[in-house]
């Protein structure tokens, strides 16, 4: 089979110029699918509703832009019925962690071999700027976070990394939309992982995020490298340790640092699979 160089479909994206989703799309179409050499007809990509949920339509694989919050269940149904498919569920913070959050712990505990890519832009962008479960919380006295017109969020943000860890996800990684090569590697590792893999992608919304949000993230972000010391936030008095993604205790320690203070990029946790999970469909 000839090597496909790009899995982009013809359709033109609806995103704003400069949107982080372009980075995610290009990681998937130009790198992940090409590098893994999975034929397009053997890939099924399903999304919910939101800006990032538009991604499947721009990829030449099988796919469905479904209804809000349900990408993960449709993905599991497809994988169970046809285990030879590579199945990717993709969507945003509102899709996976608000309306669809109830499905995640169950997808995780079943450990069905799908890859879940959550593109976190910290806001409901498609509906024009409402707070999402990951919109950073502001202390009283600080100015509104989103824009002057908007009400600031009053509830603390939901931390996707600690949520995924606490529910027992067997693969947890975090990338950033501006580093496409690194993101490509994470998604490839996630797809290769035999079990439920969860990949958080930090991105910016050029229209509804204040620019400071993403610049803070980029400034504070640090790459995790297996076998090398982790870089902890300045406020931490802990002694840095050697990163070992197979160690759940160390992953939990990473997860305790607030996202904006120290966004860790890399594979936070890659669990050893229990024997019965290797062929997820056989148990169901």
């Amino acid at each position: 089979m000839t090597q496909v160089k790009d899995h982009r479909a013809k359709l033109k994206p609806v995103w704003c110029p400069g949107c982080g989703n372009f980075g995610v799309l290009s990681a998937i179409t130009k790198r992940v699918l090409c590098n893994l050499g999975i034929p397009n007809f053997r890939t099924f990509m399903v999304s919910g509703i939101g800006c990032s949920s538009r991604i499947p339509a721009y990829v030449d694989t099988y796919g469905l832009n479904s209804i809000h919050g349900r990408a993960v269940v449709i993905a599991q149904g497809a994988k169970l019925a046809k285990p030879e498919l590579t199945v990717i569920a993709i969507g945003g913070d509102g899709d996976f962690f608000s309306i669809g959050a109830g499905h995640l712990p169950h997808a995780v505990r079943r450990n069905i071999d799908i890859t879940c890519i959550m593109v976190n832009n910290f806001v409901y962008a498609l509906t024009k700027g409402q707070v999402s479960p990951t919109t950073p919380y502001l202390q009283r006295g600080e100015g509104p976070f989103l824009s002057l017109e908007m009400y600031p969020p009053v509830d603390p943000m939901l931390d996707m990394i600690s949520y995924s860890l606490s529910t027992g996800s067997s693969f947890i990684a975090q990338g950033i939309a501006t580093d496409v090569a690194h993101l490509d590697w994470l998604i490839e590792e996630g797809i290769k992982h035999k079990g439920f893999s969860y990949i958080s992608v930090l991105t910016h919304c050029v229209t509804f995020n204040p620019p400071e949000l993403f610049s803070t993230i980029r400034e504070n972000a640090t790459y995790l490298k297996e076998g090398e010391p982790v870089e902890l936030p300045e406020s931490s008095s802990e002694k840095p340790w050697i990163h070992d993604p197979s160690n759940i205790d160390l992953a939990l320690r990473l997860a305790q640092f607030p996202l904006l203070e120290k966004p860790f990029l890399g594979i936070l946790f890659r669990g050893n699979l229990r024997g019965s999970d290797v062929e997820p469909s056989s148990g169901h």
Partner: protein
Amino acid sequence: MRKNLTIGIVGAGGDGVVVLGSFLQRIAAALGYFSQMPRYYGAQIRGGGSAVKLGLDAERLSLPKDSTDILVCFSWERYLEFKQEMALTEDTLIAYENDLPEEMKLPKRCFWIDFSRRSQELTGSTRSKNIVVLGLLKAILALPNIQVREIIEKDEELKLLQENLLALEAGEHLFREHSLPELTLSPARDPSAKVVLHGNAAMARAASDAECRSFFGYPITPAAEIMEEMQRGLSRKKGVFLQAEDEIASVGLAVGASLTGAKSMTSTSGPGFDLMTEMIGLASTDEIPIVIIDVQRCGPSTGIPSKSEQSDLNHAIYGGHGDAPRIVIAPYDVEGCYRLVIESFNIAEYFQTPVVLLSDQWLGQTFVAINDEFLRKDYPIIGRKKPSKEHSEDYHRYQLAEDLISPMAGAGDELLAYQTTGLTHDDKGAPAFDHKTHQKMHEKRWKKLAPLCQRDDLVKFFGKEETSRGIVTWGSSAQIVIETVRKLGLQNEIKVCVPELIHPLPEKIERFTSSVERLLVIEMNYSGQLYRYLHSLLDLPRRTEVCSRAGGQPFSNEELTEPITELAR
């Protein structure tokens, strides 16, 4: 000696009421008797009331009568919960073991028998008291001894009886001094063994026979038995079974599986069906075949979960935002529960659309002993239209074919990869935002279903064509309506139409309603949902009446006698 007999059994949870009824029904079925045995439960799982009403018939499949010929009562307190269903006459023979409440006036033939004590003496436990009663009933009905022993020996399901023959014999000897010839059952006309199953089991079996290999569900009363049967069946066949986290997930999983080409199903009851509404819209607009069984119970909200009603019709036909066509089918007997599941898969797959199958608690949970021919018939199995080789050049998922049904690739099929969306989309599945495409795709999805309106075979007809009085009824109510017309001897005056396919509306229904001067619509819901639906689409006769009321108790012959007699007048 008599041809049919209705036996009521009532007690508290743990008294073994359902087991007793089921054992007697199984033994009678092996001897060739037809029977139907509805189950009645209170709100509690254990310790609450439970009752069954076994209607045995030596000649044909009939319904249990309104009143009981024999009543076995383990608890009068529980009896009061079900006294409408377990009506007594002056001739009812009663066997009971608890003290009578003061206000109870009993018929003359009443026997106080300490079943528990006898069981205790013989087996060291009171738990076999229902087996003692079984022996008693066997003796009263005069079921042949040697044959019954053989049946018990052979049937794995009667293992408990094999181990309790002492209790059975003790029961057999109880009434030896009484002569009750009017309660003996004449031998079955056709002694070939009948199969015993309930609608829920029939549906699961049909799904398996229709080659459904992926099922997703969530526990709910009174539909859970379908899920349990599917789990058993699919684990043997290496199919996909998953108990989902909620009904949104069940139906979503089914949609995902269907997109790969697998025949997929889910089953639920009202509250779960509500949760599936949004996904039905997606399956309709993206033309994804799925079968959804709704075993209706009393609603709205939690309602009466263990009792029957026919009140989800509106939701099945219209539920959801936008204009999302779907098929609505409703069986009215156990044979239909089986046949129409196969039909639902055929229709879902052929027309690429969701099919909602409306059963109800009565149909789902009533045990029926019936000839098994319908299980052995060769039903055609229809698959979905697949793209051919030439499509692979430029595959348009929603290509506008003459019959408006586009070939559907399954995810994984080589050279045909396509993307689709819940957004309004064009023939390629690409998002579209213009009125023209929106209108065109609506037309495609609605008009492709038009051939179904010609499905005369999915509208059952009883009576004489030329009569000018007619009844339209549906679901489990149809059985009692047909039987009441027969019992009143009005078959020549009144014809009955039972649509199994309700949406889209078969033309045969219009031919029926326009052929009568007087029409009566009978259904079990408060607002008359089928009537309103028919009224919205057809010119019904000026003299059209509705007989509808809330569920929670099945219609009786007595209750329907007046409206049906009035119709014939």
